């Protein structure tokens, strides 16, 4: 749907009734006798079982169906409505680790109280193993009969010491919210959320030239509060809000025995983990709608403060190493944030609109700087002091754009954007990016629309401070891609069409972006992206619809590197490709009793990285690949007015190739004791059967 001023004015007028007449609309005989208002309780309850054909961590990621066997499937939704009080509830996958439950109670237009609970399973590996015990504890010990060695090939007790350890995290989210409307113009709200995570992930414990993968525990929580008031009066809307986020980590640190040596001066290592932190933010935002040129002015101003003051550990856990006292027992870290935004949109003419927006974001790190005398990987002191760097930045963005409808079927738009960045302590202190773009939209009929957009941007820098780069030990020829000069060209073509006589539509989009980092001698020197998508849908009848969709994405980049701390010695060309296609259909009420749904998706991701250069091996890297086929079939049969039977079949095939994992056992890398991990590769069938029982008026 797009605006059409002439038609719009006509229809707008048709919708209107003069004030006097409207006030006199007599609804006394509008009895709504045909209105099937719900009254009392109505619910649909699902119960069933599903069988998962094999263990597969990646299939279980998000779904919770990572283990072979039967799962109970429970869910449903319901509504109770009586005397103005409305209660709704919704449940999904209650028997699975991805369960969700929501319930809300309220009087519409007055208040609402809601409670929600969700679980989100993250599953990465179920083929990993560790020699440390107790696994996933804060203190990881080696077996008593562990045999140390300078390389993993000497770990003679490895095989006997390995115990399975999945890499997975469960996130539980509890939500509680309340809304109260004392008047129709005022809305008060408060929401509380608690995220809790527990599980295991891989962290590496380095002992300078060697390292071990550690099964570290994840046991943390985040409490979040959003509260505020919104006020509307005529042309004004105002909102005052508070946001608080409080992170707490129940794990203080991670200590481990060094598997490579038992020498007393570096037989153990200890690392800090994520410290507790908190963030408060107050914001004021508003909108004013002026009748002059249909102008809308929107603004927001937010000020926040983040703090982190967790106690610091000594430089090293190994007491035999002499180290200096810490300059502070805790960081006393503080970051102040400021965010201001102003947007003005206006329509000075019925065929033209303009938009101006300005945004300013600041991160002001007030954390005190001190000199720290680190002990490298709990192994040897450096002796010299090193200052922590509290990074700060200011970023402002100005956008100007205008659209002019030249004809009823053609409109043109253009815009200019400017981004300014000021940073502390980085190689580039001041950076600007100027972008210009234009767009033409052609809509010859109500059912056909084509859009063409193109533009270019230049990201310029005042100075790349190579002296500072050298202070950090960086090659002065390196240009970090987020700091480097860049010229970008981009374009987009989109087409959407539908048939006026048939509910059939097609949409296509093609985008490209071409980046040139022509002033970079090392680092990313060029990259480009091409993206194409196409959709087709057809509502064959009120009961039957089919769809097809497909998409491709190609991201290429050229990178230059140096292993000699000089000019470029090698070149890597990256070619990331991804393609997917799929389709499906929905048929409802076949013979008044049967619903059938089918969805199929195929996707294929491939990454080729080719190296060239004097010192580069002639052995190419294998391609990284990930191929997935996913099929979902759902069938519902109405057994009676109150009973439905459901059958669901789900199949997923995943096949991957990844040189970072392929053939990498726990002791494959001489200097790294890993946890091993097999490639993701599964063929999972999930077959489920269940019943839906309808309660209340809905079945009548």
């Amino acid at each position, binding site marked *: *749907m797009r*605006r059409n001023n002439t038609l*719009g004015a006509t*229809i*707008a007028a048709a919708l209107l009734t003069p*004030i006097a007449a409207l006030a006199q609309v007599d609804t006394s*005989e*509008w*009895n*709504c006798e045909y*209105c099937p*208002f719900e009254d009392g309780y109505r619910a649909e309850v699902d119960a069933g079982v599903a069988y998962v054909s094999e263990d597969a961590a990646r299939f279980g*990621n*998000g*779904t919770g169906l990572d283990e072979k066997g039967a799962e109970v499937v429970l869910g449903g939704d319901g*509504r109770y*409505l009586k005397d103005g009080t409305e209660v709704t509830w919704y449940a*999904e996958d209650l028997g699975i680790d991805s369960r969700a439950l929501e319930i809300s109670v309220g009087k519409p*237009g007055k208040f609402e109280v809601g409670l929600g609970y969700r679980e989100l399973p993250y599953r990465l590996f179920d083929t990993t193993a560790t020699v440390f015990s107790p696994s996933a504890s804060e203190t990881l010990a080696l077996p008593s009969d562990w045999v140390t060695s300078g390389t993993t090939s000497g770990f003679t007790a490895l095989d006997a010491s390995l115990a399975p350890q999945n890499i997975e995290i469960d*996130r539980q989210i509890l939500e509680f919210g309340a809304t109260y409307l004392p008047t129709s113009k005022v809305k008060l709200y408060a929401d509380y959320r608690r995220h809790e995570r527990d599980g295991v992930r891989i962290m590496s414990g*380095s002992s300078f030239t060697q390292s071990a993968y550690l099964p570290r525990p994840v046991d943390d929580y985040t409490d979040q509060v959003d509260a505020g008031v919104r006020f*509307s009066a005529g042309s004004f*809307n105002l909102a005052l809000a508070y946001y608080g986020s409080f*992170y707490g980590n129940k794990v203080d640190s991670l200590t481990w025995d060094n598997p490579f040596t038992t020498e007393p001066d570096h037989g153990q290592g200890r690392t*800090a983990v994520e*410290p507790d932190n908190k963030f408060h933010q107050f914001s004021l*935002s508003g909108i004013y709608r002026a009748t002059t040129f249909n102008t809308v002015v929107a603004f927001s101003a937010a000020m926040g403060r*983040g703090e982190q003051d967790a106690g*610091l550990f000594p430089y090293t856990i190994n007491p035999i190493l002499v180290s200096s006292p810490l300059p502070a027992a805790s960081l006393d870290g*503080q*970051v102040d944030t400021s965010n201001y*935004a102003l*947007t003005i*949109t206006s329509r000075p003419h019925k065929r033209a609109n303009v938009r101006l927006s300005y945004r300013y974001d600041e991160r002001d*790190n007030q*954390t005190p700087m001190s000199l720290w005398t680190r002990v490298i990987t709990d192994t040897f002191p450096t002796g010299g002091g090193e200052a*922590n*760097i509290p*990074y700060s930045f200011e970023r402002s963005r100005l956008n100007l754009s205008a659209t002019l409808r030249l004809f009823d079927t053609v409109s043109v738009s253009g815009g200019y954007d400017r981004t300014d960045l000021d*940073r502390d302590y980085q190689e580039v202190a001041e950076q600007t990016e100027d972008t210009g773009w234009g767009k033409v939209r052609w809509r010859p009929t109500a059912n056909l629309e084509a859009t063409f957009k193109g533009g270019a941007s230049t990201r310029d820098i005042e100075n790349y401070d190579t002296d500072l780069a050298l202070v950090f030990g960086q090659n002065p020829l*390196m240009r970090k891609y*987020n700091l480097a000069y860049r010229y970008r060209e981009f374009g987009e073509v989109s087409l959407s069409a539908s048939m006026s006589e048939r509910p059939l539509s097609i949409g296509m989009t093609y985008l490209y972006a071409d980046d040139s980092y022509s002033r970079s001698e090392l*680092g990313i020197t060029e990259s480009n992206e091409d*993206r194409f998508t196409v959709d087709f849908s057809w509502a064959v009848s009120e009961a039957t619809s089919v769809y097809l969709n497909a*998409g491709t*994405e190609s991201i290429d*980049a050229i990178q230059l590197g140096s*292993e000699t701390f000089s000019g470029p010695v090698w070149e*890597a060309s990256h070619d*990331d490709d*991804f393609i997917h296609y799929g389709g499906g259909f929905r048929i409802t009420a076949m013979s008044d009793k049967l619903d059938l749904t089918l969805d199929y998706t195929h996707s294929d991701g491939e*990454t080729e990285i080719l190296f060239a250069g004097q010192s580069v091996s002639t*052995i*190419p890297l294998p391609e990284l690949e*990930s191929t997935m086929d996913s099929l979902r079939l759902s069938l519902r049969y109405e057994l009676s007015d109150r009973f439905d039977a459901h059958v669901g079949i789900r199949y997923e095939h995943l096949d991957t190739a990844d*040189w*970072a994992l392929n*053939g*990498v056992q726990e002791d494959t890398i001489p200097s*790294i004791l890993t946890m091993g991990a097999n490639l993701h590769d599964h063929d999972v069938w999930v077959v489920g059967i269940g019943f839906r029982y309808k309660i209340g008026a809905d079945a009548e």
Partner: protein
Amino acid sequence: MRPITFVVTAAMLMTLTVSTAGGQEPSYSRKGADSCLSCHEEDSVFALFRGTHANPTDPNGPFGHGQLQCEACHGPTGDHAGRVRRGQERPPPGAVFGSGSVTPVDVQNGLCLECHQSDTGFGWHGNDHDINDIACADCHTSHAARDPVLMTSTQADVCFECHRQQRTQSLKPYAHPIRQGKMDCSACHSNHGETSEWQFARQTLNDTCFDCHAEKRGPYLWEHAPVVEDCGNCHDPHGSNHPGMLAMRGPMLCQSCHSQSGHPSLPADGDGLPDGIPSQYMLGQNCLNCHTQSHGSNHPSGSRLMR
């Protein structure tokens, strides 16, 4: 809908000084919803009564006492519901919603915002969806027990009807659990506007990421500069071919910025595979094999992000 509010908007819209055909004022139906439902028996119409809009006890709702029922949203339908002569085309109702409707988007949205101005419509005016003429009904289904765009399991499918690129990206090997229906777009994006870039749910991209990844907020004793500035420097949050939704495979991603003295930036070529000389710099977690604290370290000896 509150009649007084409707009157105000009617007055505003009357500034469009166009008369209806024949100069007659549109009229309301004689029997309200009964006039509509006597013909519109489709399930898709009656599904309205399973949802929150058809609550007769909500005084501000379309079906509250004295409200305009179907015509609160669809406008006066007296002509549409009235008798037509044989061969005469039935006049359209006041407003029809959704894709393909002849009712202009601003008129459609104006009707919705009558009641939703102070909440979901708060940041709507001038935001990207508004500027691009997206109708409320392009996303929302009001004739339903539960609006698909308000449900985590189905929301993304609605968004992907326009944001097709993001559907492609969500299907990549490493992505947030969108395709599994366990995360929705509105976890990160405020679809009704606000003034943040890309309609982020929080003020900035990083603030939005910290909603679920608060452990990365710090501030840390040893910060990693690109992390505190923009998570998107290293991650593609809509999906990637690479673990961790990284924009590029390690160690090359790190080597895009780091070429350190005393720590040669070696090419991750085929020599480093398990069949050759297994490389600690490229296999497993590559750079993170040692520099495990890539988001920052709070250890006094963690300046190289190894503690």
